[in-house]
């Protein structure tokens, strides 16, 4: 360049590293917190009522550890009340209502969710720790879309199953996790309502708030009392739902450990069951993949929602010829991730959902280091309070390492390598889980060949973590059974005659 100005000198450190500094940094751009109520009650029979015992528990913001509200703690007596209300509503009103009328209620709920989306996504972020960008652009639009989708099915059930009639089941007990609190509530409630069932839903202990705000919407939408009941509490309330004699169906999303307990508990009863459990998905990158988009897919696969995703692409399988370039690009991409205040619109990685989860992540990462894998972790600043974990990946991981086998459920990726497609398939399937998988190659025929051999409920090709209400979701093996979403998502809530 000419004249007085001299080109900036590139300092080459650590064998040429890009410089992601603060020459032009983003100013904080936080959403304003929503004013929450100090106290939240259970939603039973269309009314908000305190727990019979009068007990409450405190729910916090994992990014600050500050208490957000006191929430009623349900026990067996409250669950019993909720199931009775659901049974009454099912028998007297909901199962007898014309399907087109049922659809109107569900449509109304969907529209009201859209109207209140902004408030709901802020609460979701405050209570769960996920970045506002995700709750705003992914969770909330999908929540509304699920209600819209199943509203459409309500009066078309006669055409859903060729030659068969679909009859509702009765009272569905639904227990959901803390990683997508409102979205999981939508996945559970929408198909149950569309098929004419009544619901008792228990949100996760750490994230009860959006479900209770959904209860307010349901009340405002004039849904007949008792059709949807929401009981907040700990594992005790969940167990009470599972063991209640008058529940016809259990739908559970959560850990494999608890899933097994539930399946044992209801063995020999009339209860139908669907389980959506853990995963340790293989994300397979072939040499002929579009590398930059694949790297983006790796990031989206494992660091989306702090890795608190059952279908997260937590086992990266990279073909040996491109290991160096993928590692380098992944590292440079990792360094641009912005960790911090989940309410900031520029935050990519929010807070870990709870102290317990953070401890679990830390102990598994420690085991990875102890067992000899090589850790790559960025060195960003973290807020003083709250639960945080820096985005991390491991190389030199062996299939036998705990970090290659166990679900970490955090922003931690394990990279393994393979030489041939056969080896990739073998490694990908070599896990007790089978929820999801990813395949990256520019070659169409290879996609079909590999995808058909992967034992996973969902296989994404040249993308990852894409969700749509029309697409069924669910697992193989220890990842559970039953499908949610799509036409398949109606099946667990109907009796075919």
């Amino acid at each position, binding site marked *: *360049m*000419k*004249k*007085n*100005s001299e*080109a*900036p000198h*590139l300092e*080459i450190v650590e064998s*040429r590293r*890009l*410089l*992601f*500094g*603060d*020459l*032009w*940094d*983003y*100013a904080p*751009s936080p959403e304003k917190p929503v004013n929450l109520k100090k106290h939240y009650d259970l939603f039973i029979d269309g009314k908000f009522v305190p727990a019979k015992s009068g007990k409450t528990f405190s729910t916090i913001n994992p990014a600050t550890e500050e208490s957000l509200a006191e929430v009623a703690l349900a026990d067996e007596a409250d669950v019993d009340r909720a199931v009775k209300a659901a049974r009454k509503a099912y028998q007297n009103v909901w199962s007898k209502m014309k399907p087109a009328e049922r659809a109107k209620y569900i449509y109304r709920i969907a529209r009201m969710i859209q109207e209140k989306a902004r408030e709901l996504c802020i609460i979701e972020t405050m209570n769960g720790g996920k970045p506002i*960008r995700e709750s705003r*652009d992914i969770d909330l639009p999908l929540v509304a879309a699920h209600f819209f989708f199943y509203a459409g099915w309500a009066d078309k059930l006669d055409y859903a199953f060729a030659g068969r009639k679909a009859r509702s089941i009765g009272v569905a007990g639904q227990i959901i996790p803390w990683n997508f609190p409102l979205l999981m509530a939508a996945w559970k409630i929408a198909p149950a309502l569309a098929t004419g069932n009544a619901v008792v839903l228990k949100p996760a202990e750490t994230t009860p708030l959006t479900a209770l705000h959904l209860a307010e919407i349901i009340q405002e939408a004039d849904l007949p009392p008792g059709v949807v009941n929401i009981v907040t509490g700990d594992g005790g309330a969940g167990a009470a739902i599972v063991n209640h004699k008058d529940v016809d169906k259990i739908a559970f999303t959560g850990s494999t450990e608890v899933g097994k307990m539930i399946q044992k508990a209801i063995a020999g009863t009339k209860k139908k069951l669907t389980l959506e459990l853990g995963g340790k998905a293989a994300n397979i990158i072939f040499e*002929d*993949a*579009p*590398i*930059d*988009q*694949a790297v*983006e*897919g790796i990031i989206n696969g494992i660091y989306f929602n702090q890795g608190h995703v059952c279908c997260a692409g937590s086992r990266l399988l990279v073909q040996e010829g491109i290991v160096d*370039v993928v590692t*380098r690009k992944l590292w440079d991409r990792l360094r*641009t991730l912005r960790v911090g205040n989940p309410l900031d*619109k*520029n935050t990519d990685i929010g807070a870990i959902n709870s102290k317990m989860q953070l401890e679990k992540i830390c102990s598994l990462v420690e085991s990875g280091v102890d067992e000899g894998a090589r850790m790559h972790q960025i060195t960003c600043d973290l807020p003083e309070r709250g639960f945080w974990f820096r985005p991390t990946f491991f190389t030199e991981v062996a299939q036998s390492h705990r970090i290659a086998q166990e679900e970490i459920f955090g922003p931690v990726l394990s990279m393994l390598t393979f030489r041939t497609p056969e080896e990739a398939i073998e490694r990908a399937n070599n896990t007790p889980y089978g929820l999801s998988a990813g395949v990256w190659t*520019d070659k169409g025929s290879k996609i079909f060949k590999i995808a058909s051999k992967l034992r996973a409920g969902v296989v994404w090709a*040249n*993308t990852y973590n894409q969700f749509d209400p029309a697409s069924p979701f669910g697992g193989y093996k220890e990842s559970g059974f039953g499908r949610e979403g799509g036409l398949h998502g109606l099946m667990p809530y109907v009796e075919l005659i």
Partner: protein
Amino acid sequence: MFQTTIDHVGVEERAAKLGQRSIKAATKVQGIKLALSMIDLTTLEGKDSAGKVRAMCQKAKHPLPGNSEVPHVAAVCVYPNMITVAKQALAGTDINIAAVATGFPSGQYPLDIKLNDVRSAVNLGADEIDMVIDRGAFLSGHLSKVADEIALVKEACGAAHLKVILETAELETYDNIRKASWLSMEAGADFIKTSTGKLSQAATLPITLVMLEAIRDYWYETGKVIGMKPAGGIRTSKDAMKYLVLVKETLGDVWLTPHYFRFGASTLTNDLLMQLTKEMTGMYQSVDYFTVD
């Protein structure tokens, strides 16, 4: 040489996501000033006259008259006939003169005419040459012809910096754009540039992202820092900020200077000035308060 394909869905998603970054307050002011300093203020019309070019050079020197905090632009970009006028108007400043050459915009001229075009522009005082590649040769698979031509033009440039215009709208696919970017850098480009500005489709975020990623990969391999210039279609501050975000998060701070990143634009300047004035005074001014040059 490391090569890869581009998945168009993936790259468009990534560009859109980066385009969502929230740019507020001090970041916005700093970003606007940075963008102003990166502009190649351009007039490339058949009706260009000495008067028009002189007026534009005045704007290039003092984008917002009376405000010394506003930086001058990086360069003015003109046809070879206007180099002398621009040189006089910009005497004593740091502003470069970029001239389009090699039979701009089509490039459909014999090689010796293209090379003479370049030599003459450099002799007249151009600091930077914006050349066009032979898209016909590229699309018919004669890649070495394209590369050889770039290498010869580079030689003809001497000390002047070479920007290679790919005219991405005519290359159409991201794979072609990546291939052409790589080929240009290997053949000696100092900058790669999206468009001539003569077609309705010009720079876009995903196209720029593909080119930035090619620049990054080339740097991984060779350590050479190549510059990037999206041109055409960038008219608002908001757009400009999105491009800066792309640079910041793909290549990092080293590229966040006029030395390695330019905007080829004519109308962008006034929107940047309008937004800057709004940030400084708290209110929007009428467009009539910004000079049209």
